[in-house]
């Protein structure tokens, strides 16, 4: 007769092994799909499974973080540290996700809408404790949350020492960020749409200039004067190009307006993914596939061995 503990082990261990192996194979399959799909230019993109390398640009009004940084995608949450002895942890008590609006991915040839609500969007995550925020940021979050949460916002000064600890998690994609997009591309009936945006044209011309000669990049971006352009310096260059382009007048008629060729979305067969950076960075998170497979193999082996011992 098997004990309750043994029955639990017989049920739980194969689930863990199976889950781990399944996760590993799923990651391998995703990685292979991304690697095998060539990168298209948006202007000549075909319908169906596609991969783009471009930059983030707002589709409509610019979203701004409380610190004034313009973004194309932004959501935040308030977390409270709950002290429960060994189970103490940060718990999300409020989140604002209404700003997951469509945005544009643009390359040197054209643009495409990204239906962010239907895509797996990887953002930059910044976590700061409440006392690390400045006054205007505290006011923004306090006004938004209002009286929905008891004890929020926390008091400052001596009284604040006795209150619970809060932190803000912000997830965003800054305007001008290099983006890697994988998903299903489609051109609806009334496309392509023309975008009369001098700001966007100016941004693309800046990007082409940055991508031009190495000497130009060094003169513009090498802030630490080490003769090399690091990844962060290059990203900063893209953000600065976007910021300077946003201020361009919107009343200028353009000779060659940008075109929005279609939209990137998910389907039952193709799950759309948006990553900041390039294909290598998108694949980085999938490198754990082999680790999951190894863990699954180890747990499965232990399970079979355990089962054989049990049944003898």
């Amino acid at each position, binding site marked *: 007769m098997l004990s309750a503990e043994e029955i639990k082990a017989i049920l739980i261990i194969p689930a863990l092994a199976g889950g781990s192996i399944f996760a590993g194979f799923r990651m391998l399959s995703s990685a*292979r799909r991304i690697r095998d799909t060539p990168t298209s230019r948006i202007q000549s993109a075909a319908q169906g499974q596609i991969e783009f390398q471009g930059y983030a640009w707002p589709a409509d009004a610019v979203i701004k973080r409380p610190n004034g940084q313009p973004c194309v995608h932004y959501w935040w949450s308030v977390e409270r540290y709950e002290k429960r002895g060994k189970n103490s942890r940060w718990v999300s008590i409020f989140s604002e996700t209404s700003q997951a609006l469509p945005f544009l991915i643009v390359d040197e040839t054209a643009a495409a809408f990204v239906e962010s609500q239907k895509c797996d969007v990887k953002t930059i995550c910044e976590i700061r404790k409440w006392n690390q925020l400045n006054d205007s940021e505290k006011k923004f979050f306090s006004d938004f949350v209002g009286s929905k949460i008891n004890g929020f916002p926390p008091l400052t000064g001596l009284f604040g020492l006795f209150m619970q600890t809060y932190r803000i998690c912000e997830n965003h994609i800054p305007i001008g960020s290099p983006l890697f997009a994988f998903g299903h591309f489609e051109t609806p009936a009334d496309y392509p749409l023309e975008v009369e945006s001098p700001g966007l044209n100016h941004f693309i011309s800046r990007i082409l200039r940055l991508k031009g000669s190495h000497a130009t990049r060094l003169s513009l971006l090498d802030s630490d004067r080490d003769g090399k352009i690091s990844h962060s310096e290059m990203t900063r260059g893209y953000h600065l190009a976007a910021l300077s382009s946003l201020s361009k007048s919107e009343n200028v008629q353009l000779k060659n307006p940008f075109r929005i060729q279609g939209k990137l979305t998910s389907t039952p067969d193709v799950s759309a993914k948006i990553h900041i950076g390039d294909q290598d960075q998108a694949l980085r998170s999938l490198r754990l596939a082999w680790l999951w497979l190894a863990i699954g193999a180890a747990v499965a*082996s232990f399970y079979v*061995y355990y089962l054989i011992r049990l049944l003898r």
Partner: protein
Amino acid sequence: MSLALIFLIVVLIIIGFVLVGAYNSLVGLKNQMDRAWANIDVVLKQRFDEIPSLIEIIEQFAKYEKDILNKLILARQNYVGAKSNGEKMQASGEMSRALSQVVAVGENYPELKSNNNFVQLQNRISALEETLADRRELFNETVTNFNTRLAQIPYTFFAGALGYQSAPLFTVTETEKTKPSLKMNLGI
């Protein structure tokens, strides 16, 4: 049965699944390649469909340029008759060459050059040529991925069983290398 032996059996089973994945990836790449070619075919067909309108306009203004028109008609017929991808690639090159000569005709006939329909067709064909160039690059990338994968282990073991062979790239033909740029003729 020792734990080590059980672990080895499980690892072999997982390797089996990985080999299944390798087989599937080869099939997936082959389909990607076929899809990339089909996407080129779509643009070639669009370009092909513009040609009768172009011939009609030129005949109105430049009916003495029969030689050039005949080359274009012949290139169009060759495309229709092409069966394999290689023949289509060649026919596409001939059509590009014939089209560029037709566009050059516009320089000699001011009435033709100022005709709105002719200008619109030129722009349309120019846009299609750009799309064609992008799709050719994409096709070549899928072919390179496929050919590289075929030569790698363990995919090379499946290649023979599936009957897969290295595919040719969509290269620029000799006629295309000597063709004048459409943009030069349009004065862009």
